[in-house]
């Protein structure tokens, strides 16, 4: 007899080191629809469904050999009628004179089980979606990106006159094909970058002390022609060579290139793009300011969400719209470098995007 424990509002059972059931309270016996004689002296394992027996042998018993207790186990027991009953189980080892015994408490799972089933289903669905995502990425990488790369390459061959001289008209067509293929490639690269960042698949960041001026110089070399073609003026302010930050130089360049490309896209001809630097103690700000149409106040934070672009935003001549992933990627990259990307904007006057990074000691 177990006294008060016999009618406690939970099942209770004790088994010996070899698994033999030593005691069981009335609550548990009633749940299992079994007599005490049918349970005592039997292996505990025999009260479990087959799947729970496997879990008991492969997980629970090894754990109990290595540690004194296991909590919140999901086990399914079998009633005398043959029905299954789901239990939340705690097991604790108790040292007795000659050998340890194991005390188990069982709480019957009813409504809670439905919710747990729901969680498991949701997780499986998420896993499947994740697998589909991986498959899509793989398809994008190999089945789409590679042939488009070939199209771009063949355009180059034609433009070089390998297949004979092109007429002016043909040259124009091939240049447009080349430009279109490069555009599709950049979209694919954006999607791949964004998805990998979100999945945490980006290779380690090479964080080191770098001077902002040299990264800016490399970025300007890549964007300079576009700024010129868009009919914009460009200037750099307060970004001296003694300003140093801790960042991955390639990732920082990617962020700055994204910001400058955006500035070019959304600033009308005759406008100005300015890059400035401000050291504020432990943080250094690199600001990209444009004189574009600005962002409505209610859209300011949304523009960092993937696939979001400001409705009706003007696109500079010769620039094509993307997927709206550039800022999402850039903010993600900035944060992974212990930094932040934020924006201030005034409708009709322009926007300033600021990358905040950890300052390094100058010198």
């Amino acid at each position, binding site marked *: 007899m177990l006294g008060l424990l016999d009618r406690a509002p939970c099942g209770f059972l004790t088994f010996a*080191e*070899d*698994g033999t059931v030593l005691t069981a309270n009335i609550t548990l016996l009633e749940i299992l629809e079994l007599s005490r004689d049918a349970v005592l002296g039997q*292996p505990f*394992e025999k009260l479990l*469904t*087959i*799947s*729970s*027996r*496997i*879990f008991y*042998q*492969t*997980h629970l*018993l*090894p*754990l109990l*050999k*290595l*540690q*004194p*207790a*296991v*909590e*919140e*186990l*999901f*086990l*399914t027991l079998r009633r005398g009628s043959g029905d299954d009953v789901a239990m939340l189980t705690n097991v604790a080892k108790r040292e007795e004179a000659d050998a340890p015994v194991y005390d188990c408490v069982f709480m019957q799972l009813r409504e809670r089980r439905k919710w*747990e089933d729901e*969680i*498991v289903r949701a*997780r*499986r669905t998420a*896993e499947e979606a994740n697998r589909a995502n991986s498959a899509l990425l793989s398809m994008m990488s190999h089945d789409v990106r590679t042939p488009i790369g070939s199209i771009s390459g063949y355009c180059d061959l034609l433009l070089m006159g390998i297949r004979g001289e092109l007429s002016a008209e043909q040259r124009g067509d091939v240049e447009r094909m080349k430009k279109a293929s490069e555009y599709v490639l950049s979209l694919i690269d954006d999607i791949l970058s964004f998805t990998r960042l979100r999945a945490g698949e980006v290779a380690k960041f090479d964080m080191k002390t770098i001077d902002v001026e040299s990264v800016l110089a490399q970025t300007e070399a890549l964007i300079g022609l576009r700024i010129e073609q868009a009919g914009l003026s460009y200037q750099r302010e307060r970004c001296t060579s003694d300003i140093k930050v801790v960042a991955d130089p390639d990732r920082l360049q990617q962020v700055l290139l994204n910001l400058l490309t955006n500035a070019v896209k959304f600033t009308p001809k005759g406008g100005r793009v300015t890059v400035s630097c401000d050291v504020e103690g432990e943080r250094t700000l690199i600001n990209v300011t444009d004189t574009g149409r600005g962002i409505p106040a209610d859209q300011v934070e949304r523009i960092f969400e993937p696939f979001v672009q400001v409705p009706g935003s003007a696109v500079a001549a010769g620039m094509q719209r993307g997927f709206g992933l550039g800022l999402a990627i850039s903010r993600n990259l900035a944060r992974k470098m212990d930094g932040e990307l934020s924006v201030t904007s005034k409708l009709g006057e322009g926007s300033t995007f600021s990358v905040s990074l950890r300052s390094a000691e100058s010198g």
Partner: protein
Amino acid sequence: MKEILKRNNVKVFGNGTQPMLFAHGFGCDQNMWRFVTPAFADDYRIVLFDYVGSGKSDLSAYDERRYATLNGYAQDVLDVCHALNLSDVIFVGHSVSSMIGVLAAIREPSLFAQLIMVGPSPRYINDAPYLGGFERRDIDELLDTMDKNYIGWANYLAPAIMKNADRPELAAELTESFCSTDPVIARRFAEATFFADNRSDLAKIDIPSLVLQCSDDIIAPTNVGEFVHQHLRGSEFHQLKATGHCPHMSHPEETIDAISQYLSRAASRHNRPVAGARGQKELRAE
């Protein structure tokens, strides 16, 4: 080499030269072997490791495609052997690792001197007239049970650590998170294990082996152990009194005895010095 040792959390100790490579089964990690390895440490070079995805292995090295089947895990065994430049290996595999050892030995038989299988099963699901012990729905239910248990996985281990705050030596051990692993990986390991069929692989190796069969083992019943013995050329079959599926944890002395005696017989067949008895005596003296 260092990458593999870190990736698989490889531990090497012992005073002997011949390597004994212990491979854990599904559900736990190299800690499973802690009750038997001291008995062999005087005479052998003990090598312990965690499969990628288990224990303290490098989870970032987990590749879904590689570890979708037991072959990926067999490659872990071979990688560890190569990283440590092992040869003449006595492979001791528990449960699914028995078949992982067989797959590794098929690929590179010259690495292995002996295969010792604790509770092996080449196929867990019944396939008449073969009786593996389970129906497919049992395994589906197991996967469901695992999913449910991994919901509370953090609670699974943490309370035990907190309760032993006054016993720092135990608390320190527990921070190693026995058997903890990523729930998704654990589920995939379960699928790779319980849906495998390695019956036809048994005939592909010709390496002396020992089948250690537990009594009343629901996961690897006696008829399955006998099947393994019948299809493995040159194997010995040893019936343990130990019940359950983890005799190396529940009955370490009987397990040590059986392995030591087998290795003694194998050594005398090959005129090697008999090893293992000393460690066995020392363990018993404790």
